């Protein structure tokens, strides 16, 4: 049968055309195409990987932020607490100080009062003495006129002193 008998001419042509076709297409089509497709696939994979990485980093960043915020909050609370304590201690110190000072002033005032009192008493004593001398002078002046009387007075006075 003609149908299943290979013809040499056609066979030769097919072999020659096929070799040329494989050669040409490999050089000008398959190699550049395969290379480009491969490169594009690699870059897509890379892009996907880096997107995944970026996402992860984003999540990490967010977690860090949250952590920092929490820390800041804790710090603020701490600071507030400290301030509160400091306020209390300052007030307490001030009160104590004031009390001490007030006591000191009071003491000083009392001392001064005591001094004043002493001087006043001393003055009063000297004035009383002076007055008594004056009175005595006057009395003496009058008494000296009568000798008898003079004697009685002196005696009396002497008695008084002894009694003292």
């Amino acid at each position, binding site marked *: 049968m003609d149908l299943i*008998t290979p*013809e040499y001419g056609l066979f030769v042509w097919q072999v020659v*055309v096929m070799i040329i076709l*494989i050669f040409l297409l490999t050089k*000008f089509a398959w190699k550049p195409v395969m290379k*480009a497709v491969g490169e*594009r696939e690699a870059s897509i994979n890379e892009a996907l990987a880096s997107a995944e990485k970026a996402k992860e980093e984003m999540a990490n960043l967010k977690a860090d932020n949250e952590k920092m915020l929490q820390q800041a909050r804790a710090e603020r609370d701490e600071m507030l607490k400290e301030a509160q304590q400091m306020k209390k201690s300052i007030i307490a110190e001030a009160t104590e100080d004031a009390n001490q000072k007030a006591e000191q002033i009071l003491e000083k005032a009392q001392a001064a009062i005591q001094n004043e009192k002493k001087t006043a008493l001393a003055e009063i004593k000297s004035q009383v003495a002076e007055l008594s001398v004056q009175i005595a002078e006057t009395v003496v002046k009058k008494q000296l006129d009568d000798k008898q009387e003079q004697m009685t007075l002196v005696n009396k006075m002497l008695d008084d002193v002894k009694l003292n």
Partner: protein
Amino acid sequence: MHEIFELILSQQFMATHKSSKITVALMLLLILNTFSSFAQLDTDEVIDESFNPTEMIMHHISDSHGWHFFGEGEDAFTIPLPVILWTDKGLVSFMSSAFHHDVEGEYIVEANGQKFVNYHEKIFVLNEGETEFEYNEEEHAALNANSPFDISITKNVASMLLTSILMIILFMGLAKHYRKSKKAPKGFTNILETLVVFVRDEIAKPQIGEKKYMKFMPFLLTVFFFIWIANLMGLLPGAANVTGNISITVALGLFTLALILVNANKDYWQHVFWMPGIPTFVKPILAIVEILGVFIKPIALMIRLFANITAGHIIILSLIGLIFILETAGVAAISVPFALFITVLELLVAFLQAFIFTMLSALFIGMAVQEHEHH
């Protein structure tokens, strides 16, 4: 007969008119395909008065020296193709139109001091001094002539060259895209890229393996697209039956065989000649089977492709031929839709056969280069 056929044509056309442009074009093409067979049949009938379906079908699926489209005898519309012959007196070449559409060995062409005839698309050179070609039908041999080595650009060669040029245009276009941009191509170029990636990911990688597939990609891609495009071109009206020709498939199968033989590793030959892991007395028996297997594999490839494509063409032609065998135009109402259905099926077969050929080639190559784990 023509009116009824045209009516069917227009109805088919109207039915598809509402759908997309592509579908219309496709349908028209398919209908034209059946129509071209029809035109051929019509004129056959006029001349012979008796319709011979075998002859008609054989004419359509065999190779020829001119690219015949329609018409018969001197009125036929045929694109002349160069006839190139290697004779005892050297290379002779002339256009196929020199035979004046004669295929019965009656018209003698004189070139380079020799006389040539075309007998059923085979070129014979007459012996010295002979003036008329004589052929013995019983013995299938020429009595006073011999056949020179025929390397003509026949219809199949021309079609094969067209397919090759089309492939070069398509895939160089695809390669050109990557020189301009790194991005994925759009539209038709993207389809081509998808197919290239399909061959790589679905055929080469799984069958040959990640490490070695790259070396065989050029062959697999070229064979896949060559067979597919040639199959599709074969479905066009008036086109040649390239992949349904045994010479073509033998050449393609031998490429696969050559690749297997050249690239096979030590393990492969060991498994062929002295299969490890079986009793020694079985080894020689198995060696015979395995050695036969080395050659049967590519032979199966050759026959599968040839038979599938040729069978498809024969079915379509037979369905159309029914109209003339039964000599009723009414049969067209059944055979034309049937032929149309088969033609659409052939579109699928065109892809499928290209896929199977490439797939099995990759599988056989994969078996030859595979690293076996020792038992």
